[in-house]
């Protein structure tokens, strides 16, 4: 019965294949060289307005950790024309959901608002791209705020020391091994000038991308983008390429921490940059989906449902980055049986091997269909579309990569996935074992 069902499924899905273009996008460049992408979505008169800077925590000078993030906060504290407090007041009055974020690779400022307010948002955002003017008092307050933010978002998680140490091990001395927030002492040692210099060095239209996603026609968008952003002066941006990790060894991190209630295992593999890998990234993505993409994945079926060795297991491939890409597998062992480290690591190893043996052309097609089935939702929310496009473009992908995504996934062959797995096995790897405090040293 099930077989017949699956055969029918295949025919149905083949008939309704996803169309090539994911979004209705238009791309152009302003007079000063600033790139713009418009994603049309006319469901409601609303728009996501995002300015992305190709600058992030990896571009910080060693010892000045957290300056990219602190500056992101200071961007809300006034310009030559907009005094401290006024930017946020305007955002509230405009009914805009205003925020920003800093990652390793990029920093983005964004608002979600009624489209009738867009021009005001553009004027305010363009103004702070080149004319930021925060004072010492604002700096002091924001320094304290980002310190509090790190305590709340990072340090209050009892697994934080484990997570940060694992990163250091995986990335050796690359800036990707450091926390985006900076270390506590780094944050508190930052000076007004550090933030100001970082701003002057990196905030300019030639290091930015404008994304407009929502109820706007490309012609109008172009006219407005030119009006508000097109005259902003460019800057001579000099950026040292993020330092490569010198030598990475396979490593195992075992840590017992207070407040941890259950054992957690993670395997992370360091792979080359997406530019180096080219179409291979799709093979790794299919591999991750096949192994650990949800409850129908191979490892879940084997380890959770079959062997009952784990409560959950998942795999993920992170490749939208300017740096090296990371493949990871994580697992929450079933705590009803005593945890035996060596045995558990072997169980995972043989589960991976078994999964690769079981990978048939049929299962591969199934996996790829699952990956493409959700694409129909991607055009629904203009905010999500803006995030996706912004992330891709600021990390070295093109709109063409988005448009060909479904085809690229479809073209991945069994050999591609097997090859990807073999390469994974020879990639630098860290194994992380996080234990409850009372299991310290007991894990053998």
């Amino acid at each position, binding site marked *: 019965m*099930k077989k017949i*069902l*699956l055969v029918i499924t295949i025919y*149905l899905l083949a008939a*309704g294949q996803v169309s090539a273009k994911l979004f209705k996008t238009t791309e152009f460049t302003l007079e000063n060289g600033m790139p713009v992408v418009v994603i049309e*979505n*006319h*469901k*409601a*008169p*609303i728009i996501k307005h995002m300015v992305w800077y190709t600058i992030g925590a990896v571009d910080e000078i060693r010892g000045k950790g957290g300056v990219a993030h602190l500056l992101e906060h200071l961007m809300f504290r006034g310009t030559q024309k*907009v005094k401290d407090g006024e930017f946020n*007041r*305007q*955002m*509230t*009055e*405009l*009914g805009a959901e*205003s925020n920003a974020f800093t990652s390793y690779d990029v920093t983005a400022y964004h608002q979600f*608002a*009624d*489209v*009738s307010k*867009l*021009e*005001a948002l553009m004027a*305010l955002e363009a103004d702070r791209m080149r004319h930021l003017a925060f004072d010492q008092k604002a700096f*002091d*307050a*924001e*320094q*304290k*705020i980002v310190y*509090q*933010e790190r*305590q709340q978002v990072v*340090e*209050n*998680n*009892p697994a934080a020391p484990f997570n940060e140490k694992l990163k250091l091990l995986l990335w050796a001395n690359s800036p990707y091994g450091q926390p985006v927030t900076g270390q506590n002492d780094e944050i508190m040692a930052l000076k007004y000038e550090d933030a100001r210099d970082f701003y002057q060095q990196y905030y300019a239209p030639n290091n930015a991308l404008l994304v407009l996603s929502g*109820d706007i026609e490309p012609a*109008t968008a172009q*006219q407005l983008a030119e009006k508000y952003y097109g005259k902003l002066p460019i800057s001579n941006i000099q950026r040292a390429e993020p330092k490569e990790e010198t030598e990475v060894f396979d490593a195992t991190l075992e840590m017992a921490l*207070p*407040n*941890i209630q*259950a054992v957690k295992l993670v395997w992370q593999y360091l792979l080359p940059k997406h530019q180096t890998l080219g179409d291979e990234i799709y093979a790794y993505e299919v591999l991750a989906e096949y192994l650990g993409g*949800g409850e*129908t994945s191979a490892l879940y*079926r084997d380890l959770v*449902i079959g062997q009952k060795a784990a409560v959950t297991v998942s795999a993920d491939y992170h490749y939208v980055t300017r740096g090296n890409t990371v493949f990871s597998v994580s697992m929450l062992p079933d*705590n009803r049986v005593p945890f035996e480290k060596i045995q558990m690591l072997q169980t995972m190893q043989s589960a991976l091997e078994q999964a690769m043996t079981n990978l048939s052309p049929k299962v591969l097609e*199934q996996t790829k269909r*699952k990956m493409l*089935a959700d694409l*129909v939702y991607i*055009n*629904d*929310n203009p905010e999500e579309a803006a995030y996706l496009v912004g992330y891709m473009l600021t990390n070295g992908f093109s709109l063409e990569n988005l448009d060909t995504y479904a085809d690229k996934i479809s073209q991945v062959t069994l050999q591609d996935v097997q090859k990807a797995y073999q390469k994974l096995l020879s990639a630098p790897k860290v194994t992380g074992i996080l234990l409850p405090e009372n299991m310290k040293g007991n894990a053998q």
Partner: protein
Amino acid sequence: MRRRQRKGFGYYLRRLLFLALFISGAFYAGKIIYLKQQVLPVKKILADSVLKGRQFEAKVQQIESGNLKAYLLEEHSNPIISIRFLFQKAGVAHEPEDKGGLATLLSEMLTAGGGRYDAEAFKEICAEYGIKVSFSADADDFSGVLQFPSQYQDMAVKIFKSALYEPRYDESYFELAKTQQMMALKLQQERPEQVLNERFKQFIFAGHPYERQALGSQKSVFDLTVEDLENYRQTKLAQSNLLIGIAGDLSADKAANLLQKLFGQLPKQTEIEISSPLIIETTGAEQNIDRQSAQAVVKFAAQGTFRDSIDFYPLYMANFIFGESGLTSRLNKTIREDKGLTYGIYTYLTISDEAALIQGSFSATPENLPQAKEILRQEWLKLGESGVSAEELAQAKKSLLASYNLRFAEIDSIASMLLAMQKYRLGIDFLDKRNDYIAEVSLQEVNAAAKKYFRTLPDMVYIGARTNVEEKK
């Protein structure tokens, strides 16, 4: 010469003084003009905007089929459909007392295979067709969502019916779901904010079913049986306590038809417990949960008001100004922006069937906690005593009117909104009236509500407030 000299000296001095005055006057005048140009003319930009005056109509229809009713918003720009629904008074507070975690476990088991689809086939079909089915339970209700690409409606209906009417409760999956739920309970103890959430409920709702843990306890989950779940499903899920919101790529006729296909086989009636609203009287009491963490996490609450009360919009505006309007709220301005004591502090109105609260939360390192709490208390009482200013209210209104359309960002969130409109009995014309409700609230009404609800201090629970923790290495 002398005269000339003398006259000359005084004359030039006066001329010089005059010139100095003139120059400085001109300078200041110039500076004012200059500064005016230096202010970003947001109002003018908006008035001249090429984007103003976009008309948009969101037409909500009520559809009916037999005993079933639903709100529908047709939206055809994407080939997807989302259905949000809830069974009233079938949530955690309505579980039998010794069956903690039942509703949550049932929500998991409904998608672990049904009818001829075992769990594996069920999940496989969902994944391959992009069909999303899930259930969940909050304190009041047992809720669900069904989303699917419109071309796969037939398959979505089949899958959904198997979940709702023919859950299999296969033993291995039943054991797995229990193990996962017990693990979730354990993991909840890891994060201070999650420990706080549970303890806060116990503190505020002591003795009322709202204090219950949605996941149950290790023992109650372990003891749950398939019979418990099945009995609950059959008695709590009926047409008479069902509310439905539908949004997306389908017509009213098709929606009515779909309604019958999905929910037509449910029992017509179920008994619903009548409940009476709780009055939470707060006195500024505090409870400390001892635990070592980098930051103290704080939750506080006071009596709020129900959705159908005449106090609702006035209190809504007062709270918006006080703690809900992001970085410009009074609390964020004083505690975050000026002093840097916290990453953020927020308040919000929460409304359940039996309790209406003003709630709030923030985190701060232990050394900042006393000052942050003190400012919070001052601001709380200040709002109660002096209310808000006309300017603050005008700005809040502008904000809430301008953000109206953001609720239409996503098909699934539209379906959720349609469901909320029914749960809170806002009427099918709510969207037409909502902006008037906001615009018509007067300063007097807002300040009367502020006086009534911010008179006594909220009760507070916090965790991780120990200041003498050892320095971490």
